[in-house]
């Protein structure tokens, strides 16, 4: 039975390992994209424009209220069509196909971004107003305040919440296997189909996910300790 998990010609070890690498690649890309969406969403929610407020509110409400699988299916089946429709407006009539990786990253990134929006918004609001006022009194411009005062402190406050979002993102990437992208779940599915050992391969997948979540929990704890090294604890 262990031969099936080995790296030999009859083993699935190599594929499982590349599946693990793919899961990490998709997770990191979607999480990064999610932070970009989240920052934009938080900026929109905190702006004084009613239109931006509304757009961000609709984004977070819909994406957080609809099943992740539905978002992935929507982009997987409808993504190419939508892009071709937009391209058609600009006069391009050819066929455009997007690869499963990009679709997966955008879909999970959208979901991750909706949760990040709330985390980042809360973190920005946790920065005391006095800090901003003091920076302005020192004569800093808006951009300088953002770069030197607001963003560094926001990052510290957002870290625990973003750690949770990372765990969600990591687990959501398993759903991309429905688009046949060869990440952990997909490899396990294919392997169990051809070897008739579903329990073996799905439990291996579970162990790999547990490994990823455990390692990243430890990494986030370290990052938090480092980010808080200048803060006195009561």
């Amino acid at each position, binding site marked *: 039975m262990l031969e099936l998990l080995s790296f030999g010609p009859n083993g699935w070890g190599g594929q499982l390992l590349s599946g693990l690498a793919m899961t990490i690649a998709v997770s990191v890309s979607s999480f990064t994209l999610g932070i970009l969406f989240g920052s934009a969403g938080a900026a929109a929610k905190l702006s004084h424009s009613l239109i931006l407020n509304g757009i961000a509110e609709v984004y977070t409400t819909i994406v957080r209220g609809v*099943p992740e699988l*539905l978002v992935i299916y929507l982009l997987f*089946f409808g993504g190419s069509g939508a892009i071709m429709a937009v391209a058609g407006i600009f006069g391009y009539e050819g066929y455009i196909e997007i690869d499963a990786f990009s679709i997966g990253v955008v879909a999970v990134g959208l979901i991750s971004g909706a949760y990040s929006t709330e985390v980042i918004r809360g973190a920005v609001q946790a920065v005391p107003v006095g800090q901003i006022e003091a920076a302005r009194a020192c004569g800093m411009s808006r951009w300088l305040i953002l770069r030197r005062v607001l963003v560094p402190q926001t990052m510290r406050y957002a870290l625990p919440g973003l750690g949770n979002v990372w765990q969600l993102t990591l*687990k959501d990437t398993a759903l991309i296997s429905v688009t046949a992208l060869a990440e952990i779940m997909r490899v396990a599915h294919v392997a169990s189909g051809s070897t008739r050992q579903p329990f073996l391969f*799905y439990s291996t997948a*579970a162990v790999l*996910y547990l490994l990823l979540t455990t390692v990243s929990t430890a990494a986030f704890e370290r990052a938090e300790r480092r980010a808080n090294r200048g803060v006195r604890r009561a």
Partner: protein
Amino acid sequence: MDWELMWDSLPRLLGALPLTLTLVFASLLFGAGVAFATALLRLSGNRVAETLTAGYVFVFRGTPLLVQIFLIYYGLGQFESVRDSVLWPMLREPMWCAILALTLNTGAYTSEILRGAILSVPVGQVEAARACGMSRVLAFRRIVLPMAIRQMLPAYGNEMILMVKASSLASTITMLEITGVSRKIISQTYAVFEIFILAGAIYLLLNFLAARLIKHTEWRLTPYLRTRA
């Protein structure tokens, strides 16, 4: 946007609503039982019980739900002892596999919510109850549990919404609930956006109702926080 198609597909999608609701309610109900037992065992002081339940929670919170569903639906059938057991008629059905996976998943998350809520009850309350002559069980039933349940409501509301969303994964093991039916309609009509918008709207409505229900329960259970007219 094909409005007519949307209107025509609505009855079929709504026809799948009872199955989605069954999945959600069954797993929330069984999951509450699992969570209650798990939380009590994790706080029992018994080393073996604490390690076992901590392991259960760790595994089910650390892996994707899809893995859990596939492990139960495809994985268990691999063993002859499972296929020969009395449970096989149930474990053969995707319905029971989906409910089992969802139950164990929500049970793990809810047990942590409940454990946190039980720990948040001030020690003084228990001491006062003991001083009044209540037994430990009576104090737990009358003092700790009601306060813990009130405390855990907001977090449990999130869990309910997560379960409504999680029920969509049952479509991956051939269940024709809302997501499964939408995929079927799309494969017949190719109207991706129309159908998914409709399905998304149904889920949003369900989640909105779940959030209202929790808000209302919270309001009912906190008469002392309401301002008197």
